[in-house]
C-alpha cells in the first residue's frame, strides 16, 4: 500500500500548486452577487457620508448627545471597532510566536479585517468632534504659541496608540502579502492585474536571500506587534479608567477590555470566514479544526469577560458603603434605564458563548455563525452600557439624563459596517485572501521519493518530517 504524506491541518490539499490555484482563483471574475453586495456597501458609505455632512452642516446637536452623556454611540462604536481589530494581530502575531499550526490559512483574512477595522474605528473620534476639521489638534506638534499637546492626557495616548496600531498592522499586513502578490503576479493573465502586482510585489523572487531577511523581519514585527495589541486596548480602556467617572474609574479595565476585544474580534473572524469558505469553495483551507480552535479561544476570552462582570458585581456587594459610587454603573446597567442593554450584553456575552463548550457546536458552522453574531451584538452593547449607562448616572442626581441616539448616529453606525464591508470586499478580489506562501509550510514538501510513491526507496528513512505532517496509508490511491 503506497504511503502518502498528508498535512495534519489540511489533509485535503496535497500539492503546493493546488494552493496557488485555489487561492488565486478568488481573484477571478466576480459574480453578480459580489457586485450587488459591493453596491450595497457603497450605498451604506453614502449614508455614512450623508449623515456626517448633515451633522457638520447643521451641527452636532443632530446627535442625541446631551449633558452629561457626551460620549454616546460614536465612542461606543469606536471602541467596538478597535476591539474587532484585535484578533487579526492576535492570530497573525501572537499565534505566530506560539507556533500555532492552525493560523496559516486564516491569518490573512483576519489581518485584513484588522486593518479595515482600525480604518473604521479611526473615523469615529473625528466624527464625534463638534468641529471635525480641527482633529489635527491632537497630533503631537506645537500650536502657534509653541505649546504642545498634553502628553499626560489619555486622549493623546490614544492618538499615539491607535495611529501606531494602524501603521504597524498595515505594515505587517503588507509585508506578509509580498510573496503572495508575487505568486499572483506570476499566475495572472489580466494585463492591469499583471502591472499592479508587478509593482506591489516589489521585485520579489523568493530567493534564499530574500526569504532569509523576510523571515527575520516577520519575526521581529510579530514580536513588536504582540505587546502592541495588548497596549492598544489598554490605552483605549484608560480613556475611561483614568477619568473619575464612577462607572469607569476601575483598575480592571485594561485586562477586561483586552479580553473583550479578542473575544469580539475572534467572533468577527468566524462570522466573516464562514461565508467566504462557502462562497469561494475553500472547505479544504478553513477546516472544522480551524473553527474549533478559534471557538475555543472565543470561549476562553468569553470566560474572562464573564469573570470581569462577576468581579464588578462582587465589588458592589463587598464594598457595601460605596455602593452608590462604584456600584452604580453595573447596578444601573442591570436595573436602570438601560436594563435592556445590560440584558442584551449579559445574554450575548455571558450565556450564549457557553454553548461553545460542546465540540459538536464548535464544529457546526451555521450554529457558530449565529453565535458569533450574537457575541458581536453583545460586545457592542457592552461598550454602550459602560459608556452611556455610566455617564447618564454621573455624579449628582439632578444631572442625570437618558440618552437617545439621533438619526445621524444610527446612520453613521450602519454606515461604518458598510465602510468596513466595502474595503473587505475590495480586498477579497484584489489581494490573495489566504496566505499562499505560509500555507505551504503546513503542507508536506514535495520530495522525489514521495512523488514517485516508492515507500521502500532508500531515501524514505532519512528524511526529516515537519511537525505538522503525518503519514497516512492512502487507500484510494493504492
Amino acid at each position, binding site marked *: 500500500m503506497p504511503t502518502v504524506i498528508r498535512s495534519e491541518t489540511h489533509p485535503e490539499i496535497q500539492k503546493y500548486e493546488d494552493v496557488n490555484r485555489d487561492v488565486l482563483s478568488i481573484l477571478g471574475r466576480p459574480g453578480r452577487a459580489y457586485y450587488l453586495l459591493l453596491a450595497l456597501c457603497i450605498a451604506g458609505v453614502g449614508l455614512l457620508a450623508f449623515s456626517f455632512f448633515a451633522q457638520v452642516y447643521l451641527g452636532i446637536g443632530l446627535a442625541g448627545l446631551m449633558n452629561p452623556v457626551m460620549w454616546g454611540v460614536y465612542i461606543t462604536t469606536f471602541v467596538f471597532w478597535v476591539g474587532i481589530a484585535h484578533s487579526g494581530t492576535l492570530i497573525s502575531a501572537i499565534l505566530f510566536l506560539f507556533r500555532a499550526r492552525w493560523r496559516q490559512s486564516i491569518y490573512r483574512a483576519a489581518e485584513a479585517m484588522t486593518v479595515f477595522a482600525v480604518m473604521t474605528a479611526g473615523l469615529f473620534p473625528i466624527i464625534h468632534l463638534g468641529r471635525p476639521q480641527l482633529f489635527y489638534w491632537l497630533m503631537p506638534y506645537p500650536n502657534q504659541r509653541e505649546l504642545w499637546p498634553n502628553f499626560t492626557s489619555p486622549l493623546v495616548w490614544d492618538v499615539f496608540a491607535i495611529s501606531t496600531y494602524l501603521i504597524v498592522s498595515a*505594515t505587517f499586513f503588507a509585508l506578509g502579502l509580498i510573496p503572495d502578490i508575487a505568486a499572483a503576479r506570476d499566475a495572472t493573465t489580466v494585463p492591469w492585474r499583471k502591472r499592479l502586482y508587478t509593482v506591489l510585489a516589489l521585485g520579489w523572487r523568493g530567493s534564499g536571500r530574500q526569504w532569509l*531577511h523576510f523571515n527575520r523581519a516577520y519575526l*521581529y514585527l510579530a514580536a513588536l506587534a504582540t505587546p502592541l495589541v495588548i497596549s492598544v486596548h489598554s490605552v483605549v480602556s484608560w480613556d475611561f479608567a483614568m477619568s473619575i467617572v464612577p462607572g469607569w474609574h476601575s483598575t480592571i479595565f485594561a485586562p477586561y477590555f483586552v479580553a473583550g476585544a479578542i473575544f469580539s474580534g475572534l467572533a468577527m473572524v468566524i462570522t466573516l470566514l464562514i461565508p467566504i469558505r462557502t462562497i469561494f469553495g475553500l472547505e479544504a483551507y478553513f477546516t472544522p479544526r480551524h473553527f474549533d480552535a478559534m471557538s475555543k479561544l472565543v470561549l476562553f476570552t468569553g470566560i474572562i469577560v464573564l469573570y470581569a462582570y462577576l468581579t464588578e458585581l462582587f465589588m458592589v456587594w463587598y464594598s457595601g458603603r460605596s455602593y452608590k459610587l462604584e456600584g452604580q454603573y453595573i447596578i444601573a446597567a442591570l436595573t436602570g434605564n438601560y436594563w435592556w442593554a445590560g440584558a442584551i450584553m449579559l445574554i450575548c456575552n455571558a450565556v450564549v458563548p457557553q454553548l461553545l463548550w460542546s465540540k459538536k457546536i464548535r464544529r457546526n458552522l451555521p450554529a457558530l455563525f449565529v453565535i458569533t453574531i450574537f457575541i458581536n451584538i453583545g460586545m457592542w452593547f457592552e461598550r454602550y452600557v459602560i459608556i452611556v449607562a455610566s455617564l447618564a448616572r454621573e455624579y449628582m442626581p439632578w444631572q442625570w439624563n437618558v440618552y437617545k441616539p439621533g438619526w445621524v448616529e444610527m446612520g453613521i453606525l450602519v454606515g461604518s459596517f458598510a465602510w468596513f464591508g466595502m474595503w473587505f470586499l475590495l480586498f477579497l478580489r484584489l489581494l490573495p485572501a489566504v496566505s499562499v506562501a505560509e500555507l505551504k509550510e503546513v503542507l508536506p514538501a514535495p520530495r*522525489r521519493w514521495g512523488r514517485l510513491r516508492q515507500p521502500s526507496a532508500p531515501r524514505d528513512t532519512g528524511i526529516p518530517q515537519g511537525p505538522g505532517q503525518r503519514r497516512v496509508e492512502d487507500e484510494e490511491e493504492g
Partner: protein
Amino acid sequence: MDGGRFLGVFHEVDTAVEAIGNLRQAGLTDLETYSPLPQHDLEHALHRPQSPVRVFTLVGALTGLATGFALPIWTGLDWPLITGGMPMIPIPAYVVPAFELMILFGALATVIGLFINARLGAPDRELAYHPSFSAGSFGVLVAAPEGKGSDARRILEEAGAAEIQAWDEESAHEA
C-alpha cells in the same frame, strides 16, 4: 565561453538540496536558491550568515523609546505649566507615548532593514527566474567561472533538474 550562470528548476526540495551539496563540493559556491516558501533545508544547505535585520529592529526600537521620553520631557520643560504638588516631568504618564513610539520606530526600522537587505523595490537586474518558483518549484542558480560551466550544468542535470536555463556572463548583466 564555458562559464556563465545556470538556473536549475527542481520539482522537489530534496533534489535541489542535493544539487547544492554537489555544487559546493565541486567548488561552485556562488549560489542562490528560489523557493515558494521559506525552506529550511535550502537555507541550511547554503550556510548563510545571520540576517542583520535584527540590528535595524533594535536600533529603531531604542530610538523610538528615547524619542517617546525625550519629546514630552522637552515640551514640558520648554513651556513649564506648573501645577501645585505635581511633578514637572511625570514619567509614568510618558511611558505610554514612549512605549508606542518604541513599537512604531522598531517596526518601521525593521521594514527598512528588510528593504535594504533583501533589495526589495530596487531595480532588478537579475534575469534568473521562473514563474513556477512562486507556485511549487525550487530553483538553484549557480554562477560558474570559466571552465566550470559544463560541470555546473552536469551537476544540476544529475541531481534531477526538470529544466535548466543558461546565460553567459555578458548577457547576465544586461537587461
